[in-house]
C-alpha cells in the first residue's frame, strides 16, 4: 500500500498561461449565467406562493427582479453574495463580531498553528523513516492507514472532548489541522529525501562524508521541490480541518461557526459569503506558498 501511494501517477501541475485567460473567463461567465438562472428558478416558487396569497398577478420581469432580491433566498444570486462579502469585509470594523475579516483571522491563526505543527511532525517523521529501516517498516503503513480514517468527520468530537478537559481556544482546532496536514508532508518528504540516486550518494561516500553532511548538503536540498508541492496540499487540508473544527455548537468565532449559525437561522447569504471568504483564504494561502516556492527554488537554481 505504501508503494502504491508513493509511486502513484500524479496529475501534471498546470501552469497558467496568458492564452488560458479567454477560456477561463468563458467558463466563469457560463458558471455565473447558470447560477443566475438557477437562482431565478429556485427562488421563483416562494415568490409565486407569496403573490398567490396576496392575490396579485406577477409579470415575468417583476418575478425575475423579486427572485434576485430576496432576503433569505434558497439560492442567493451572485451579486447578493458579492454584496454580503463586501459588507462583511469593508462594512464593519475589523474587531466587530460581524466582520468577516475577524472571523477569517480566527480561522487563519488556528490553520497556521496546525500547519506548523503538522509540517514539523511530517518532516521529523520523514527524516526518521529515511534513516531507519525499523521506523520505515513500522510507521509508514500506519501513517497510510491513518489517512483512510475519516478524521475530519470526528473533528467536532475531538473539540468537544478537549473542551471537557479544559483545552479550548486555538489548540484543539490546530490539532485537527495538524493531523490533516502531516500526511502530505510526510509522504512528499520521504519521496524527496530519497530522490538522490546511487551515483550522488556514492560520490558523498567517496568523500567519506558523514551522514549529517549527506543530509544537509545532498538529501535536504534535493527534497525541497517535493516539500513545497506537499506544503500546498497540506495548507489547504489544514484550512478545511480548522473550518470543520469550528462546526460544533458553542463555537462562536471563525468561518466554520459563521457557516453553522447561517444554516441554523436560514441566512443563506451569510453561508455563501462565509464559503467564499474561506475559498479566497485558501487561494491566498496556496498562492503564498507558491510564491515562496518560486523564490526559494530559483535562488537554489532548482526552478523548472
Amino acid at each position, binding site marked *: *500500500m505504501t*508503494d*502504491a501511494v508513493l*509511486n*502513484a*501517477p500524479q*496529475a501534471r501541475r*498546470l501552469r*497558467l498561461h496568458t492564452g*488560458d485567460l479567454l*477560456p*477561463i*473567463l*468563458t*467558463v*466563469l461567465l457560463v*458558471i455565473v449565467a447558470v447560477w443566475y438562472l438557477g437562482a431565478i428558478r*429556485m427562488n421563483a416558487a416562494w415568490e409565486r406562493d407569496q403573490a398567490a396569497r396576496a392575490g396579485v398577478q406577477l409579470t415575468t420581469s417583476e418575478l425575475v427582479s423579486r427572485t434576485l432580491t430576496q432576503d433569505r433566498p*434558497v439560492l442567493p444570486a451572485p451579486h447578493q453574495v458579492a454584496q454580503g462579502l463586501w459588507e462583511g469585509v469593508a462594512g464593519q470594523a475589523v474587531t466587530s463580531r460581524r466582520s468577516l475579516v475577524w472571523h477569517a483571522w480566527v480561522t487563519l491563526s488556528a490553520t497556521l498553528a496546525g500547519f506548523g505543527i503538522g509540517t514539523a511532525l511530517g518532516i521529523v517523521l520523514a527524516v526518521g523513516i529515511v534513516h531507519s*529501516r*525499523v521506523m520505515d*517498516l*513500522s*510507521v509508514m*503503513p*500506519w501513517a497510510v*492507514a491513518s489517512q*483512510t*480514517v*475519516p478524521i*475530519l*468527520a*470526528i473533528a*467536532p*468530537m475531538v473539540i468537544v*472532548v478537549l473542551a*471537557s*478537559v479544559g483545552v479550548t481556544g486555538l489548540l484543539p482546532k490546530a490539532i485537527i489541522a495538524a493531523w490533516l496536514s502531516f500526511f502530505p508532508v510526510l509522504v512528499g518528504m520521504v519521496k524527496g529525501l530519497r530522490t538522490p540516486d546511487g551515483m550522488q550518494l556514492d560520490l558523498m561516500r567517496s568523500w567519506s562524508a558523514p551522514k549529517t553532511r549527506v543530509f544537509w548538503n545532498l538529501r535536504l536540498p534535493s527534497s525541497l521541490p517535493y516539500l513545497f508541492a506537499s506544503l500546498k*496540499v497540506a495548507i*489547504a487540508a489544514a*484550512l*478545511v480541518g480548522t473550518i*470543520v473544527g469550528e*462546526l460544533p455548537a458553542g463555537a462562536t468565532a471563525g*468561518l*466554520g461557526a459563521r*457557516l*453553522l449559525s*447561517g*444554516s441554523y437561522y*436560514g441566512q*443563506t447569504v451569510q*453561508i455563501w459569503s*462565509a*464559503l467564499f471568504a*474561506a*475559498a479566497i483564504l*485558501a*487561494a491566498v494561502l*496556496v498562492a503564498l506558498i507558491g510564491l515562496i516556492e518560486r523564490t526559494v527554488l530559483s535562488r537554489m537554481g532548482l526552478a523548472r
Partner: protein
Amino acid sequence: MSALPILGVWLGGIALNVWLARINTRLSRGLIAAVFGLTLILLWEMAVRIYQIPTVILPAPSQIAASFAANRSILWTDFVQTILRGALMGWVIGAFAAILTAIAIDRSPFLQRGLLPIGNFVAALPIVGIAPILVMWFGFDWQSKAAVVVVMVFFPILVNMVAGLKATDALQRDLMASWAAPYGASLWKLRLPAAMPFLFNGLKITTTLALIGAIVAEFFGSPTRGMGFRISTAVGRLDLPLVWAEIVVAALAGTLFYGIVALAEKKVTFWHPSQRG
C-alpha cells in the same frame, strides 16, 4: 514507579521490531507493522488503567470493544445509512459524472484550458462548507449526503481523468492513426486504458473524501440514524465508548473502501510500473 510497565512494553516493542527488521521477508514486514500497532494499543490500555483516565476523556480499547459488541445493531443501521447510502451512492454518481465530463471535454482544448484551472482551484477549496446548503436543498435524508459527496469527489476525479486521457505519447497515437482507427476505437482501446492509473489515483483519494462528506453533512441535520448523528448525540450523552466504536467502524469502512479500490486498480492496471514488485 507506575510508568515502569509502560516503559517496559514500549522498549519491548521497539526491541522486537529492531530484531524483526533484520529478517527481510514479506511476513516479517507485515509483522513489524502489526507489532507497532499492537504496542500502541497496549500502551493506550495500560496508560488509561494505570493513570485512571476518566472514560469521558479517553476510553480504554477494551471498553470500546465492549461497546462495539453491545451496539452491533445500532452500528449496522448507521453503517447502512451513512456509508452504503450516503457515501457510496454519492461516490459512484460523482465518479461517473466526472469520467463522462472528462471524456466530453476531451475533444475541446478550449473547454479543457478553461475548466482545468478552475477544477484544480475548486479541488483545493474547503468544499465541505457547502454541506449546510445542500442539506437545506435536498432535505435531511441520505439524498443530501450523497449530493455533498458528489460535489466533493467530482473535481479531484475530473482533474485526474483529464490528465490521464492525455497520458498517451505521440508514438502510440500515431500508431492508432496509421491503422486509421476512428475516434471511438482509439479512445476505447488506447486512451481509456492509458488513463486508468490516473483515474484510480483520483478514485483512491476520493474514498476518504466520500466518507468525510457523508458524515460531516449529518452534523447539519439528519434522520435519527447515521454515523454523524450518532457521534454528535453520543458526545452529548458523554457515551464516549460508543463514539469510539463509531470511529472504529468509520476507520474499518474507510480502509476496506480504499482496499477494494486498490485491489481493483491492481487488476485493471497490472501493466503499470507502480504495480510491479
